[in-house]
Structures are given as structure tokens and as C-alpha cells.
């Protein structure tokens, strides 16, 4: 009896004294959701526009995570598991939480400017948006298999509803249904994988898995060994769930349909935020194998190679399919698939270097640059992809079309929007001096280093290089339409207010240039994040 009391006491202490304090940004977002819904119910408050409440909440959460990150870097806060090890509070997680909050602010601003949820629907829409972000933040800090699943589901369910938010549009509803069915299937497979893994190891805690696995895997056991086979199967099943979120080939089928059906704002949100959360989770899951015996490392190494092959296939498939598209959102959807491929290359290089037999100080440095590259890519990707989708949304409001051929000659009517689009596209192609180039360089450099460990990484590197050229083919079509073609007679005129809209476009597009010209500061910060995650220093 007394022991239970002590346990409860310790649990309460842990929760109230450390965990809740570090969990404030998430609580702020939850509070914002409640506030928005309350405003809807109470007749006195229903005139308060939901977007301002959402924006306020997002800002508060962002500022809070920024402070946390600053304190973590400064050393006043220390990385610690919270909520009895269900979540991890460290630099890596906090960076992603901050990233997601920043992205939330930008997305809400965009929706305010483009006016996609009308007054009536705004509270619903922002509730879903904040809820999805909350789920992604949990994905980024998940430290337990249970939270892996909860985070993925929490991020997914609001996303399904958001995709179908354009009520009365057939394509939108179809997209949402497709997304739900695919999502449910992937989640089911993932849950099965999780249960296998938890059953094998007897724990759900990610940092423990490597150690527990080495207890059950005998030295030198190959794939014919039933336990090894089960572990591989379980890991693959978990990866299926994540691959779905990342739209990795061959689990990408939902992506173009969903992006075409959803509003551009929602597509932009999904393409960046859910990828960021899923990549954070993937890195955590990959690193869960560390600390095990050589046999466990070997399994993880093989997974890394497999991820590399998937990455190469994803980038190639995405780029090649994008070429035939006439709808700009579909094209951008395939482009996000391709970019997931590039980023996955970093994860592959990370696993390969981390779990290779010839580890050493040098390979640690490479693993750091893998994570640095991944984070840098995501950070640039936030601006370039959101920028592209934002401009698609803003143009759609004027010409009521998302077909590339309707963009013909736009440069003469809205030079600023086209300039922003050009910046984003050059960055997406990966041309210097844009940020997309530097990010790609860091990832390619890590993959190049990984070639010394396993020959298959040459294949991955080659695919990455060729895909850079492939990408040019279709991205340039957008620019060709906007700049090289004349505006047809009688086409709808595009006009926009310079002040809020133009400023916003510049605000999200110019960083793509800034991140390429002055990458030093960010690269160092990200390297530091990686270093804390991988080496604890």
C-alpha cells in the first residue's frame, strides 16, 4: 500500500515538477483549441475571429519553444525524458517543435490572406490545423512506441478532415476518402509492427530497444533465424507507417490525389509539416537500434541500405511522374515525393554510417552531417515549398485555376508573385546560390561519405545527382509558362495588394535565397542539434 502511494507520489512529482513545465507549448495549443471552440459556443464571443486566436496561440507556442531551444543551447535546460519516458525533451525535439510552430504561424497567415476557411468554418479549420500540429509535435518528441503510434494518428486524423474541407467539391471528398483509407491501412500495419516489436523486447521505450534486442539476437544469426526475421518484419511494418506519412515510393499513391483535391494551403501544410514530424520520428526510430550488439547493428545497417534504395526509387519516381502533370498542385505533389526521396537519403546515410562495423570518430562526424543535412533541407523546404503553394493559392484566388497553362504570361501582371515563385523553384531545383542547393550539398556529401562503407550508396548518390537534372525538366515548365509565354487575350487579370500579400510572399520566399547565401549560422546550429542527439554533447 505504502509502495503504491510512493509510486503515485513520484509520478505526480515527475509530472508536475518537470514534465508539465516543459510541455507548455503543446498545452498552449490545446488551450487555443478549447478557446476557439468556446468562442463558437458563447454568443458573446462568437464575433471574435478564430484566426486571431489561433495566431495568438501559435505565436505563444513558438515563442515558448524558442526560449526552450535557447535555454537548451545555453545549457540552462537539460535534455530529459518527460512523462515517465513517454516523450523526450531534447534539442532535437525542441527544434522540430519550434519548426512546426513557426510553420503553423506562416500557414495561418497564409489562410488569412487567401481566405480559404470562411468566417463560418474558421473555428473548425483552425481546430483541425492546430490539432494536427499538436500531433506532429508529439511525433517529433516521441520516445516510446505507444507515443509513436499516438503521434502519427493524432497528426493524421485532423489531416483527413482538412483535406476534405472544401465541402461540396467532389475531388476534395474523394481525396479525403482516399487519404483515410490509405492512412488507416498504413496505421494498421504500423500498429502490428509496433506490437511485434514490443512483444519481442518487452518494452516500448525507444532507447531501450537496441539493448533489449541484443539480448534475444544471438551472435552471427542471419536472416534465416526466426527472431531476426521477426525483428526485420516488425521494423519494416513500422517503416511502412512512416513511409506513408512521408509519401515514400511505393506508399505515395495518395499524395498527388490528395494534394490535387485539397486546398493549396492545406496541401502546403501537409507537404511540409507532416514530413517534418515523420522525419523526426524516423530518425528516432532508426537510432533506437543503437546501443545493441553487433548483430543488432547489422540489422539496422541492412535497414539503412534498404532505406537508401527506397530513397533513390522515390526521388526518381517522383521526378519522372511530375513531368507529365498539367495541374500545378499535382506536379508539386510529385515534387514533394521527390524531395522526400532526397531527405530519405540523409536518413539512409545516417543509418549506414551509424551502424557500420568500421565506426570511429570520422564516421561520427559524418552521422552529424547527415542529420545536419536533413534538418537544413527541411528548414529550407519549409520556405520553398510553402512559398510555392502559397503563390499557387494566391494566384488561384484571382484566376480560379490551378492548371499550368493558365499561368501563361503571369509575369507581366504580377511580377512579385512570379519572382517569388522563381526563387522557390530555383531552390527546389537546387541551384546555387539558393538554400536548396546548400541543403542538397550537405546531404550528397554525407551520402558520398557513406559510399566508402557500402557500394550501394554509390547507387543512391548517382540517383540523387541524376534526379537533380530530372527535376529541372518539369520545374522549369512553371517558369516557362510564367515568363516565356505571352498572356493570352481575355485571360483574367491578376491583381493583389502589395502591402500584406506582397510582403508575405517576400517574407517566405527571400529566406530561400538567404539560407543559400549565409548558411553558416544555421548549419552550425543544426550540427549542434545533431551532436547533442547523437553523442549527448
Amino acid at each position, binding site marked *: 500500500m505504502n509502495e503504491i502511494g510512493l509510486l503515485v507520489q513520484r509520478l505526480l512529482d515527475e509530472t508536475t515538477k518537470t514534465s508539465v513545465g516543459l510541455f507548455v507549448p503543446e498545452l498552449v495549443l490545446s488551450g487555443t483549441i478549447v478557446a476557439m471552440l468556446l468562442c463558437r459556443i458563447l454568443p458573446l464571443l462568437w464575433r471574435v475571429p478564430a484566426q486571431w486566436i489561433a495566431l495568438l496561440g501559435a505565436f505563444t507556442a513558438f515563442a515558448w519553444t524558442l526560449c526552450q531551444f535557447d535555454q537548451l543551447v545555453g545549457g540552462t535546460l537539460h535534455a530529459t525524458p518527460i512523462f515517465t519516458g513517454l516523450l523526450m525533451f531534447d534539442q532535437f525535439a525542441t527544434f522540430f517543435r519550434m519548426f512546426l510552430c513557426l510553420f503553423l504561424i506562416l500557414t495561418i497567415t497564409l489562410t488569412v490572406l487567401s481566405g480559404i476557411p470562411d468566417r463560418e468554418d474558421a473555428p473548425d479549420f483552425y481546430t483541425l490545423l492546430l490539432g494536427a500540429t499538436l500531433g506532429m509535435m508529439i511525433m517529433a518528441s516521441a520516445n516510446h512506441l505507444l507515443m509513436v503510434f499516438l503521434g502519427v494518428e493524432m497528426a493524421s486524423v485532423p489531416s483527413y478532415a482538412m483535406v476534405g474541407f472544401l465541402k461540396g467539391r467532389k475531388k476534395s471528398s474523394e481525396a479525403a476518402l482516399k487519404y483515410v483509407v490509405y492512412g488507416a491501412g498504413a496505421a494498421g500495419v504500423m500498429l502490428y509492427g509496433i506490437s511485434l516489436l514490443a512483444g519481442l523486447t518487452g518494452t516500448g521505450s525507444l532507447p531501450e530497444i537496441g539493448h533489449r534486442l541484443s539480448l534475444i539476437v544471438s551472435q552471427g544469426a542471419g536472416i534465416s533465424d526466426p527472431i531476426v526475421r521477426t525483428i526485420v518484419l516488425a521494423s519494416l511494418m513500422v517503416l511502412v507507417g512512416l513511409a506513408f506519412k512521408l509519401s515514400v515510393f511505393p506508399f505515395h499513391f495518395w499524395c498527388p490525389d490528395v494534394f490535387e483535391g485539397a486546398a493549396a494551403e492545406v496541401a502546403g501544410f501537409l507537404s511540409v509539416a507532416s514530413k517534418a514530424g515523420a522525419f523526426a520520428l524516423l530518425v528516432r526510430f532508426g537510432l533506437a537500434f543503437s546501443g545493441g550488439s553487433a548483430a543488432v547493428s547489422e540489422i539496422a545497417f541492412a535497414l539503412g541500405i534498404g532505406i537508401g534504395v527506397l530513397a533513390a526509387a522515390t526521388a526518381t519516381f517522383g521526378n519522372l511522374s511530375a513531368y507529365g502533370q498539367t495541374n500545378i498542385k499535382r506536379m508539386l505533389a510529385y515534387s514533394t515525393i521527390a524531395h522526400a526521396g532526397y531527405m530519405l537519403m540523409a536518413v539512409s546515410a545516417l543509418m549506414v554510417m551509424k551502424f557500420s562495423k568500421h565506426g570511429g570518430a570520422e564516421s561520427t562526424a559524418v552521422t552529424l552531417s547527415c542529420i545536419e543535412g536533413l534538418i537544413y533541407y527541411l528548414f529550407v523546404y519549409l520556405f520553398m515549398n510553402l512559398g510555392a503553394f502559397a503563390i499557387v493559392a494566391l494566384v488561384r484566388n484571382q484566376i480560379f485555376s490551378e492548371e499550368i497553362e493558365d499561368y501563361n504570361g503571369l509575369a507581366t501582371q504580377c511580377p512579385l508573385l512570379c519572382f517569388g515563385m522563381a526563387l522557390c523553384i*530555383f531552390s527546389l531545383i537546387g*541551384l*546555387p*546560390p539558393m538554400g536548396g*542547393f*546548400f541543403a542538397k*550539398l550537405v546531404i*550528397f*556529401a554525407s551520402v*558520398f*561519405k557513406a559510399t566508402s562503407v557500402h557500394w550501394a550508396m554509390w547507387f543512391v*548518390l548517382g540517383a540523387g*545527382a*541524376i534526379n*537533380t*537534372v530530372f527535376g*529541372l*525538366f518539369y520545374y*522549369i515548365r512553371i517558369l*516557362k509558362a510564367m*515568363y*516565356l509565354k505571352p498572356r493570352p487575350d481575355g485571360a483574367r487579370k491578376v491583381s493583389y495588394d502589395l502591402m500584406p500579400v506582397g510582403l508575405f510572399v517576400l517574407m517566405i520566399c527571400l529566406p530561400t535565397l538567404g539560407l543559400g547565401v549565409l*548558411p*553558416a549560422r544555421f*548549419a*552550425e546550429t543544426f*550540427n549542434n542539434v545533431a551532436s547533442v542527439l547523437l553523442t549527448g554533447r
Partner: protein
Amino acid sequence: MFTAETLTSWIIFVPTIFAFFLVFFEKKAVEAMRVFALAGTVVTFFLSLALIGQFTVGDGGMQGKISVPWIASWNINYQLGYDGISLTLVVLSAFVFLVSMLASWGIEKHVKGYLILFLILETGVMGVFFALDFFLFYVFWEVMLLPMYFLIGVWGGPRREYAAIKFFLYTLAGGVLMLIALLMYYFGSATPEAMAITGHSGGSFDLLKLAEMAQRGDIFSPGLQVAGFILLFIGFAIKVPTFPFHTWLPDAHVEAPTPISMILAGVLLKLGGYGIIRIAFPLCPYGAQVAAYALVAIGVISIIYGAFAALAQTDFKRMVAYSSVSHMGYVLLGIAVWKISEVTGVAEGRDYWLMGMNGAMFQMIAHGVSSPGMFFMVGVIYDRVHHRDLNQFGGLSGLMPNYSGMAAVIFFAGLGLPGLCGFIGEVFVVLSAWNYSKTLAIVSAGGVILTAGYILWALQRVYLGPAYKGPHPEAITPMTSREQAIGWLLIVPCFVLGVYPNFVFNYTNDSLTKLVDTLDSGYQNTPKPNSVQTTQK
């Protein structure tokens, strides 16, 4: 303010500064914008002349070196400097940009955008010539792509979209190969032995230090040097262009507007030759020597193939474009005539090789003057009669005597008439080729006859004959004073360089002597695998 160290940065960024201020011009103030942009190119030209004043003749090393850390964690520096090789090309480029700006008065469409892109292009070109950091070099290299795509794509001829994308794709593909080579050298220079030269841990992008390492021989393995050379050579050969990578050139040159054709032929092609001299050879002396015979052969094939192709053209501009392929073949031939003793590996007849190098440099400068001249002359008549069919001209010498005289001088300079600039380079190169292989020297000398053939034949069909047979005879008017000024500006250097070639050799000889020394010792110091000598081409 204008020391040698800062002048380099001024020359690079003055055009950008002017481009920035162009943004604020009233859209209708076309004439003012042109004058302002012209002022930008004039200032740059005078700055480049000032750089000659700062140059110490007799010092073959880098002068006016400046190095500022840019991305410290990657050892990337903003590192500039110049020697005789870059100095001559910088002055040439500043001159060609100035002349092309004068020739741009005829551009009526979207003048502001044209001028801004034009000036940004100049920044990219100057940056490539001054960059002494591989990363920085790559950034400037790709920066040139973007303005060029639009300059061809928006202001070009009927097939401009095709030509623009073709140019973009070829160069980007070359760029990706260069990027892989860049990573190879970066990681190849991360060895402990290399630390003695770099003075820091990790790889290096410093071109001078990388060349020093290559000269030491034991840091970059023969395999790395051969692979690196192939990648770099293809990257640069696309730009030169040499057979078989030349197919973008006729399209791009023909479809580009006249001033841009002048820049393409006068400046951008030189970047390929410069890259081979500055990067491909110094970084992989072993690879260059192994490939020397192939390079010489490619050079000779380009000469002959380009000349035959030019003979077959009926489009005046296309003929001039193919003549560039032929003329640039001499550049590659001159650089590559590196004959070694099979036993000791010491260069045989090193003075001939140096002569070839000097000839190649001179050929670049001479072609940089004569080829824009030829394109300009084609442009003058095209502006009047709006066709370029060689068979529909004739009798222009009677209608436009002044123009015909000028054109004859320029075309004779391209032909290689003694006393004009084209002669010196060709003679030097062919003479040096004699030492390398008598057969190839004879074949390349045959190219001179073919050149005479197509140029004389074209002159005959366009300027001589009884009367003009083509359309728009009424539009044939004498040259305007602006056109005459451009003509004189181009003719004077043709004579000056042809009569007093020391204007170029004075500056290039010391740097090239040093380069030849470095390459020679670099090859000798590289430990050779026994099998490679026989199997490689």
C-alpha cells in the same frame, strides 16, 4: 578603396549594384535605363583596366588574394584572386559586356528585366574568373545559368524556348558532374597528409591548396585523379563546347538575341577553357596526362567537325556558331599537347607545351573579340532584312559599303589572316601540336583551310555578287553611328592583338609557365599503378 584586394570584389559586384538600382526606374524611362546599365558596364570595364595597373608582370602566382571565411564549418571561404590567366579573360569579358550593352539598344521588349538579367550575368561571369574557392566557383558558375535561361528564353528567336531549356539542361548536367568531383576532392583532401598543406582538419575547397596537394602527388590517388578529371572535363567541355558535347551551342547561339550571342561566344565559351586550365588540369595532373591523347584528338575532331558543319550551313548565324566550335577546338588542343617520356614521365619538349598553352590563351582572347564581332555583323544585317539565309544575300558591298568593309575585317580576323588576331593563336597551337603528334598537327592545320573555305564562301555570298536577291531590299540602310562605333570597338583590338600579341603573352606567360611546372611535377610525383598506363586511353 581600390586596392588589388578589393578591386576584384568591386568588379564582381558593381554590375549587381547597378542592377539593383535599375529596379527603381520608371518603366517608361527606357532610354535612361539603357544609359544607366551601360554606365554599369563601363565602370566595370574601367575597374578591370585598373586591375591591370595593379598587376605585377613577372609574377606567375596569384595576386591580390583575399580570403574571408564564409561557411566556416565546411572550410568554405570567399576567396578571390587573379593571375595572368584570369586577368586577361576578365578584361576581355568586361570589354565584351560593354560592347554587347551597346548592341542591346535594339531590345525593345521588357527592357528593365533584360538589363537587370544582363548585369547579373556579368556578376556571375566575373565571379567565376576570380573565384579561388571551388565552392564559390561552383556557385558563380551556376548563377550564370539563371539569367542566361531567361535572356535566351524571353528575348530569343522563334525556337527560343527549346534553345533555352537545352542550354540549361546541358550546363546543369555538366554542373552536377562538377559537383560530384567537388565532393570527391573535398573529402579526398581530408586526410592527415593534406593537413600539412591546409593547416586545418577536414576537407578543403581552396583551389590553390588542392592544386598544391595534386602537385605533391601522394594525396590524391591516380584513381581519384582519373575519375575526377573525367567528371570535371565533361563539365567544362560542355561549356567550351567540344565535340560531342557541342549540340546545345548552335541552337542557343542562333536563337539568342544578337547581344546575348555575342556574350555567349565571346565570354561564356571561355569559361569552359578557363575551367580546364584553372581546375581540371591543376587538380588532376595525372588524370589529365593519362587523357592527353584523347583530349588532343577531341580538340582536332572539334576543329575539323566544326569547320565542316559550318561549311554546310545556309543560315548565316548558324555558320558563325559552328565556327565557334571549330575555333574553340584549338583551345583544347593547345592546352592538351602534353607529351611525356614513356620511361621517366618527364614532359618532353616542355617549351612547346607552354607555347601551346599560350596559344590556347591567345586563341581564347582572339576568339573573344572576333566571334562577337561576327555575331554583331550578322545581327546588323538581320535587323534590316529579317532573314539569315546565306543564299538570299549578295551585293551588300554596293549597298552598305561601310558595313561590308568592317564585316570583311572581322571575318578575316576569324579566318586567321596574318596581321589580325586569329592568326597568332592558331599558329602557336598548330606548331605546338607538331611536337605532340605530327599526324594530328597536319590534320589540325587542315582545319585552317576549311576555315578559310567557309568564311570566304560566306563573304562571297553575302557581300559580293551583283545584287541583293532576298526579301526587304528597301530596308537596307547604312549603319547607324551606334553600330559603327561598335564595329570600330571590335575592329581595333583585332588589329592590335594581331600586330602586337605581347599584349596577351606579357600577362599570361608567367602564370602559364608556373602552371606547366606544377603539372609536370604533379604527374611525376603521383605514384603510378603499373596497369593503368597501358589500359587507359
